[in-house]
């Protein structure tokens, strides 16, 4: 695949440690993600994967170590980065369109409409978020994260609360949008199948350290049925479950 004209952030996580009191959640994480790459971080709950994502986002300061965007050390939140959370976090008092255009200037409404269209929800622009289904709310949240054309998109188990069919739909949508926009993407998930379906690389975190860093060399668009798919999924799963 040709990704020569990518505009995504090149991410470098260098010796990052995070302690909460005496408890060390991240123990010396090193990770490099090239511009436009899609990386999935998997692991059991409590392994520190969400904490790592928060450090990458600049929502939290690592206790030790540095994170670089391109070649600049990260000091806090960046306007080039957007997060899609596990819950949609839509503002119930704003209509869908205005939820999508949050943080944008007046002219943002046009972009918001385009973004809503790309997730197939333009006809819901004037609804209250409460009236949408869980899957639709997450699609609005996805539109919101795309509207400012981020260079790095962080996905914190965004599909965890959706039913199986809606998840598959959303995974396809995310894959398609990522291929169009060529941003760098980091997805935290506990669903290995989802990781293999979406990512160029699957990184397994265990006890706050990288245990496995696996390239997924499958052509896109991917199908879950293939033998290679199953093989990679099995390999990662067995690493997670191994005692």
């Amino acid at each position: 695949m040709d990704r020569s004209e990518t505009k995504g952030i090149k991410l470098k996580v260098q010796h990052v440690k995070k302690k909460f009191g005496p408890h060390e959640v991240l123990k010396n994480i090193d990770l490099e993600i090239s511009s436009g790459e899609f990386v999935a971080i998997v692991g059991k709950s409590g392994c520190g994967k969400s904490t790592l994502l928060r450090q990458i986002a600049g929502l939290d300061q690592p206790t030790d170590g540095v994170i670089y965007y391109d070649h600049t050390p990260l000091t806090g939140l960046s306007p080039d980065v957007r997060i899609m959370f596990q819950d949609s976090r839509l503002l119930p008092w704003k209509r869908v369109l205005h939820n999508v255009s949050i943080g944008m200037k007046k002219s943002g409404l046009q972009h918001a409409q385009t973004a809503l269209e790309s997730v197939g929800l333009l006809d819901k622009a004037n609804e209250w978020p409460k009236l949408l289904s869980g899957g639709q709310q997450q699609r609005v949240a996805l539109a919101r994260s795309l509207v400012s054309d981020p260079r790095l998109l962080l996905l914190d188990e965004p599909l965890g609360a959706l039913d199986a069919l809606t998840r598959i739909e959303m995974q396809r949508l995310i894959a398609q949008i990522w291929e169009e926009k060529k941003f760098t993407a980091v997805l935290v998930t506990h669903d290995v199948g989802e990781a293999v379906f979406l990512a160029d690389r699957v990184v397994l975190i265990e006890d706050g350290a990288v245990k496995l860093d696996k390239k997924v060399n499958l052509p896109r668009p991917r199908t879950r049925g293939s033998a290679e798919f199953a093989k990679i999924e099995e390999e990662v799963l067995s690493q997670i479950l191994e005692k």
Partner: protein
Amino acid sequence: MTMRHRMINRFKIIPWIIPFLLLLLWQFLTASGIVPENVFPKPMDVVQAFIELMKNGQLESNVGISAGRAFAGFLIGGGIGFLFGLLNGLFKGFYWFTDTSIQMIRNVPHLAVLPLVIVWFGVGETGKVFLVALGVLFPIYINTLHGIRSVDPKLIEMGRVYGLSKWSLFTQIILPGSLSSIFVGIRYALGVMWLTLIVAETVATNSGIGYMAMNARDFMQMNIIVLSIIIYALLGKMSDLIAKLLEHLFLKWE
């Protein structure tokens, strides 16, 4: 469709059955003389008092005066309560500095300071407005504070990630998020407002509905006393309706 409409209309009537029966009972008891006239007036006498006082303009001016006091007190007390609620909800420093003091004052029943208020301000306007303001301040303060503190921190985090400035965080997330709690405070405060005004106007005054009632008592005009009570009830109901309407307007998304 018409069946359903008729059903809905019928349901609208149901809440009014008891008041109507009470009115009938009132008419029966007073007209038959079971309840003597110096204890409770006939319904028609109250209506008559209403017409008479409307004609000579007393009712209008007294209701106007009372409503003015209520409004002024509410605006001043509510404004101060809202301001402190905001500051203490948004800034920890302010909270530590003022909350304990406000809570201490809140524990004094505000009507207990009435004698003090009469000494300070006499029976004029200032005292009554002061008392209403004092009574209204706390429910608005507490509910504003509570509203701001219970805004979902996840939404605020989202706002930060999506690049909202501090001011935008306040106007787009914190304030709308605390609005429903603030409205609870407003509705409660409206009740306190009328109650305070009634007490203040009844004890120390020379105009207003309370004065009208106390003056009527001197002449045993039972119908005017009852009329005053009814007017208070109507004013209370009216302000509650206005609050509901505002709530409806501002909390459309609920």
